[in-house]
Structure formats: structure tokens, C-alpha cells
């Protein structure tokens, strides 16, 4: 899910703790225990922390064996494809994990040369596209000539999208996923990748006992940074800091920080990539339940909206009690949740259903979506 979704989800989770809401109430108000604390901010910060660690720090400490940084003036699709083929062969030959990084091609402040990578079992194709703006809008008439547009390279080992190295946790998640969604789709292919603006992309390639090479998309993402144990470790300084500063209810601070972190990891497990949720005990990235795509606006918006309503619901019932929570409150909590949570979400999904149907009606052909979990979205804000 998106950063904002994790952020507000963490905050919403923290507001379910009555004591947290009370100490967060401004001391100017007649609420028992009111202390003007910023404790809830910790839940938001820690809710965004796993992705912050990944995208702001972890990715810059990677050491890919192959770096593909195409020449901006004349990007050569054959060379890009050949580099990937060399990386697969290297992974197959050595048996070690080989990482390959593809950089974007920036032409000016707002112009980027887009290229796509298509993966087949034993070959890779690269296609250089038009120049696009930072909003990923193509500039018509800027595609390279046909002879410099695309190229294919073959490699000696077969690529596969799912790893066969499955620990008990991964097996459990797979089992749960199959219980919820039914059997995994057979013949799953590696989706194509588009490299265009701002950030680079990286793949891990590792030969497995069956002789095939496992294609691992963004191998540095959702690894050690997405572990409940790391969340515990990172909350220790918060516990200590609050204790040493002599803050009342010091133990709540570390707990709220961990809660924000844990909510993020749990939400991520509903997506496709999952996470290394028990690192360092279990280093392998566990697959997700594949219930939603991280970039799906419906999931993100509905979670954010629900979190927003629950925040209002909680801070009111644990402090002012104007809306619900007391006999003299405006309405019952059931009516509040029905009117402001259930009903609006019902309307939202009904409207979205119609909008999506209309959008699909406009689209033609047999579309094939991009990357597995929507992280191909621009990392711009």
C-alpha cells in the first residue's frame, strides 16, 4: 500500500488505545490525563518507516554486479538486453545470486527516455519508447527509428517467477492464500517492466536446485526492513528515550511506535510481494496473500477513509465524547459507524464499480498489466 495509507493506518491503530488518546489531548482541556503529548505522531512515523528505510537508505547500499545505464543520446536496446542475458548466465554458471540494476534515462529536467523490458523463459527483449514527461506522458513522434527500437537476447537458463525455496512461513501464507483466493494461476509469467522516471529498478537472479533461475523483483525491497523483530528493536530506543526523559506513561511510547511499524508489515502481507517478516530468524522474503495490488486506488482510498473516520471516532469517544461514547453524546456509536463509515464506503465502491466499468469499456485489445505490485509507479510526491 502507499505511504499515506500506512501512515494513517498506524495512527488509527494507536487511537484505539484509550490512554494514548487521553495523554494526547491538549492539557488546556478538561480531560482526565490530558498532557498534550505527541505520542500518536510516533505511530505515523513508524508506520512509514519500513518503506523509508528501503527507499531512502537500503537501496543505495546495494552492490549489483551488473549496472545498465543506457547512453541518453542513443540508447541501444541490444546492449541492454545483452547485459540482462549476461547476468542470467552468470547467475546460472556460478549458482550465486546476481543482481542487475537498470537506471532511468534522463534527458532534461522534465524529459525521460522510456524503455520496457519483456521477459520470456529463455530470452529477454528490450524496447526503447518515446520520450516521456515526469508525469509519464509520452511526447508524440519521439520514438526511435524501427531499426533502433527493440532487440532480443537469449540466455542459457530458464527464468521462473516463483521461488521453490519455501520455508514453513511461506508455505503457510501460500496455503492461506489458496484458501482465500483459490489455487494460484497456472503458468504465471514474469510481467514486463518499464523504466522511465526518477528511480532505478533492480532484479535478483538466483539459480535454484531445479536448474532454473529465480527472477526476484526489487530484491532489496521488503527484506530486513519489513520485519516485526526489527520493529521491536527500533522501538527499544523509544522506550528508553521516554523513560530517561521521565515522561509519564513512558512504556506506551515504545508500544505505539511498534504498533505503527507492525500495522505497516501486516498491511503489506495482503499484497503481492509480502516481506521478510521474521528477519533475521528467517531471511527469505515471504510471499503476500495477493489480495490487493499496492497501487490499487480503491484499497488505498478506502483504508485511508476508514482510518480517518476511526481516528475521529476514537479521539472523540476517549476525550470530548460529543459524538459518541456518553449518554449525552449526539448519536450512538453504531449509528455513527453506519452513517459515516459503512454507508460512504458502500457508495464509494458502487461509484467506483461504474467508473471502472466505463473505463474498461473504452479500452480495447487484450491488455497485459505491468509490474507485480504497483511499485512501478513514479516515486514522486
Amino acid at each position, binding site marked *: 500500500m502507499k505511504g*499515506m495509507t500506512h501512515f494513517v493506518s498506524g495512527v488509527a491503530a494507536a487511537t484505539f488505545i484509550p490512554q494514548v488518546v487521553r495523554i494526547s489531548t491538549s492539557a*488546556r482541556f478538561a480531560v482526565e490525563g490530558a498532557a498534550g503529548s505527541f505520542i500518536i*505522531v510516533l505511530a505515523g512515523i513508524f508506520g512509514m518507516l519500513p518503506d523509508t528505510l528501503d527507499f531512502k537508505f537500503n537501496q543505495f547500499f546495494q552492490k549489483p554486479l551488473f549496472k545498465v545505464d543506457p547512453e541518453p543520446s542513443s540508447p541501444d536496446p541490444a546492449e541492454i538486453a545483452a547485459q540482462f542475458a549476461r547476468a542470467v548466465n552468470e547467475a546460472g554458471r556460478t549458482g550465486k545470486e546476481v543482481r542487475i540494476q537498470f537506471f532511468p534515462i534522463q534527458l532534461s529536467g522534465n524529459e525521460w527516455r522510456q524503455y*520496457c523490458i519483456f521477459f520470456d523463459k529463455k530470452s529477454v527483449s528490450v524496447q526503447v519508447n518515446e520520450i516521456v514527461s515526469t508525469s509519464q506522458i509520452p511526447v508524440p513522434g519521439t520514438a526511435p527509428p524501427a531499426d533502433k527500437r527493440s532487440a532480443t537476447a537469449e540466455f542459457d537458463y530458464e527464468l521462473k517467477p516463483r521461488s521453490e525455496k519455501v520455508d514453513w512461513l511461506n508455505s503457510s501464507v501460500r496455503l492461506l492464500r489458496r484458501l482465500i483466493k483459490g489455487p494460484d494461476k497456472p503458468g504465471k509469467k514474469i510481467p514486463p517492466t518499464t523504466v522511465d522516471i526518477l528511480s532505478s529498478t533492480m532484479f535478483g537472479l538466483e539459480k535454484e536446485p531445479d536448474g532454473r533461475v529465480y527472477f526476484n523483483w526489487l530484491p532489496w525491497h521488503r527484506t530486513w526492513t519489513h520485519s516485526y523483530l526489527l520493529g521491536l528493536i527500533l522501538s527499544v530506543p523509544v522506550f528508553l528515550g521516554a523513560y530517561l526523559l521521565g515522561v509519564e506513561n513512558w512504556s506506551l511510547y515504545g508500544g505505539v511506535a511498534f504498533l505503527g511499524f507492525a500495522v505497516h508489515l501486516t498491511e503489506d502481507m495482503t499484497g503481492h510481494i509480502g516481506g521478510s517478516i521474521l528477519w533475521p530468524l528467517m531471511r527469505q522474503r515471504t510471499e503476500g496473500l495477493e489480495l490487493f495490488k499496492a497501487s490499487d486506488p480503491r484499497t488505498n482510498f478506502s483504508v485511508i477513509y476508514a482510518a480517518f473516520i476511526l481516528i475521529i471516532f476514537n479521539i472523540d469517544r476517549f476525550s470530548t465524547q460529543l459524538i459518541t461514547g456518553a449518554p449525552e453524546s449526539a448519536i450512538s456509536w453504531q449509528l455513527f459507524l453506519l452513517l459515516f463509515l459503512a454507508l460512504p464506503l458502500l457508495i464509494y465502491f458502487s461509484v467506483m464499480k461504474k467508473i471502472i466499468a466505463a*473505463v474498461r469499456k473504452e479500452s480495447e485489445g487484450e491488455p*497485459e498489466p505491468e509490474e507485480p505490485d*504497483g511499485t512501478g509507479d513514479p516515486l514522486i510526491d
Partner: protein
Amino acid sequence: MLSSYAAAVPDAVTILYVILGTFSGALLCLIPALHIYNVAGIAMLLWATARHLIPYYALAPFFMSLVVSYSFLNTIPMTFLGAADESAGATLLPSLSLVTKGRGQDAALLTGLGTMAGVLVLILLYPFFWYIWPYIARATGPHLHWILGLVIAHYIMSEWPKGAGRGETPFKRFREAWRNCFAGILTFTLAAVFGLIYTAKPIMPVESSFQNIMPVFIGFFAIPSIIQTLISDYRPPRQHISRKINAGWEDFGFGAVPGFVGGMLAAYLPAVTAGIGAMIAGHVTNHRNISRAEFRDPQSPGEIKHLHTPEMYYRQERLFLISGGMIKIMYYVGAFLMLFILTDLTPYGTGRGGLTFILRPVFTAEPGDFPVMLGTILLSGSLAFLLLIVSTKLMVCIVHRLNLKLIYISSLILVFLIIYAVGGGWAGITVSLATTCIGMIPVFYGCRRSHCMAVLLVPIALNMAGYGDAVARFLRLI
């Protein structure tokens, strides 16, 4: 008969002042990069010295129409001249992009239509403002300090590295990618420290205290914008004139949601501007991926597959402008309108923003004012929108012939004269030069300009939590 005639006279006078306020606001927009609250402050000063100029009952409608008109017509300098105030983040980038393609008319009118949609939303949401909003305001009131803390935390954390991370060592990769993030954190920290000092140590003369934030904002936003435009040698090309606007009704549907969310945030939360509101609303409501880029059968020689860019991607520019226009009016006007929501739960209203601050010492809202204000917004908004259409047509014809350097140098001189006259004299000029230094960091390093709003966000959040004095003592400011 006589009494109804007597009652009608103030109404006619009020309407006259609404029209006067609308035209005054429109004229004042001609000064690029000057904020409406600076102008309102000057107008307030004039009114205080000559109270017979505007009768008391017409005071609020006059200032309301001034702000409504400004919300519409500052689109002209923002779009065509690149003049940014602290709310410019809501619309500036797509506007400039369209102007450089000769489509300034689309940019200005789409923003204006968004602002007009904002007027309608403010009026249609009467039941929401009257029956639901007071509960939300009262419930969240004791928690505003941490809500502002959340805004700050998300604002800093959501600025992602813009570099791709090239370099041989982790440090080099980190440095290349983090350029904008470092600059953002530096800007935020310096602005916050400046804000803490400025609120704890009165620098400005007492007689300028009602406008003491003016030189700060001019330094953070107006002067860097002018300098940037002068350095970049910005020259808009000849603009296309068209009879239609490139947008559909559904764009207003999609744009209304972020417009409302961002507008309400900016209207209610202290120190949260339209720019910050737009950024948060963008994160909350982004529906671009409702249809994603798809691979289809090849369409041209050499293509393996055609990457189809969905209409939703193209629509983003329009949505940005429409929602930006809406956020602008909800920020400028909605914040002031909330002053008139007088209910049992909110006996003093929930008004925020510069205009509420400026008017509060001389004006008290009374029951029954709210519908008058809605009427004022509708009348002034309709007039201002017509003025915007006329001004846009005029600007489209002349913008490529304008000597922008001359305009900007004149504006710079005028801005300093205003600071000298009503913004604290030399002390005000010194303050504005100090904040200009901080405000130039985003210009050079490409981070968000609204980091400068830390000047208010941090002191306000700390003061609301009750830690303002403790922090000031810790910094040895008091």
C-alpha cells in the same frame, strides 16, 4: 413600507461594497507575488485610520469579496507570470507547463473553473458546515497539536529522493539521490528555528505587529520567486486562443474530491497552506491508477508491444488545476467563512487564517452572518470569474509582448516599499532578506517550497501542545 426601505438600504450598500471589494481584489492581483493577507492588512490599516470609508455592517462582506476576488484573479499572475505565493504548489507546475506549450488559456480557465466549483461546494455544503463540521471541529480541537505534528512528519517523510542513486560508493549514491531531501530537511529546520526565534523574540516594531508575518512570507516565497524568474529568463511563448476548454465534466468530478480534502485541511488546520493541503490530498485521493498503463499489440514498426498510456494519465494535469483552484478558494475563503459558523458547539466560530486574525480585533461575527457571507461569496465569485475570463483573454494576447524583467524588478521594488511602509521599516526588510536566504534553498535544490511553512507549523504545534515556552527556554530565547 419605510422600515422595509430602511432595511433595504444597508443591503444595497453591502452589495455595493461587495462589488467594490471584488474589483479591489482584482486590481491588487496585478502586483505579482503579493499575498492577499498583506493587502488585507493594508486595507485594514486604512480602514482603522478612516472608519467612515466602510460601514461596520459592510466590513466583513467587503473583505470577504476582496479575498474571493483574489482567489480567482491571482490565477493570472500565477499562470502567466509564474508568480508564486505559499499556495502556489497547488497549481503552479502544470500551469507553467501549459503556458510553455502556449496553452495558458486552458491553464487559467481550468484553475478558475476549479475555483468556481469551490464556490459552489462552499454553498452546497451548508448543511455539512452547519450540522456536522462543529462536531468535527470540537472533537479535533484538543488534538490539533499532534495533528499538526502528523502533517509535519508526513510532509518530511514523503519527500522521496529524486536521484536514481548513481555512484561507485554507497555514500556517492546516497549523496546523488538525497540532494533534494537534504535541502528539504535543511529548509524545514532553518525555517522552524527562525519561527521559534521570531515568535519568542519580538523583532518588529509594535505598530507593525498586526503585519509582522508579512516580511517573513515575502522573504520565503515572493522574493525567491521573483529572483528565480529573473535568473531563469522566463519568457512565455505566444499563446493559443481557443473557444473551448480541454476538459470534460468528469474531470470536475475527479477533481472535486482532492479539492475538497485539500481545501478543508488548509482551511481548518493552522499554518497548513493550500500547497501543503494539495500535497496531502494528492496522497489521500490519488486515483490515477484506476486505469494503468497496459501493453497491447504493436502499433508501429520495431515495436514488440505497444505501451498504452491511459486517458487517466493525461487527465492528471487537468485534475491538478481544477483541484488546485478549488483548494485555493477553500483555503483563502473557507478559512474565513468558518468564522461565521456560530453554533452551540462553536460559539466563536472555527475561523482560521490571516484574514480572521486581521479582522478579529475590530469585528465580531454574529448569528445570521453565515448566509450573508454565502451570498457574498456567490456574488463576488460570479463577478470575479467573469473578470478572470476577460483578463485571461487579454493576457493571452499580450503576455508574449510583456517585459517580464521590468515587471518583476518593479514588483521587487514595490514589495520592499510596502515592507518599509507597513511591514516594520528596516527591521522588516532585514527580516525579509534573512528569510529570502532560506527561501532560495528550494529554488536551487528542487525540494518543496512549502518546507518554509515550518516557520509557523512548528511554533504553532508546540504552543498548542503547551511546550512553546519550554522549548523557548531550552533555546535560551526567553
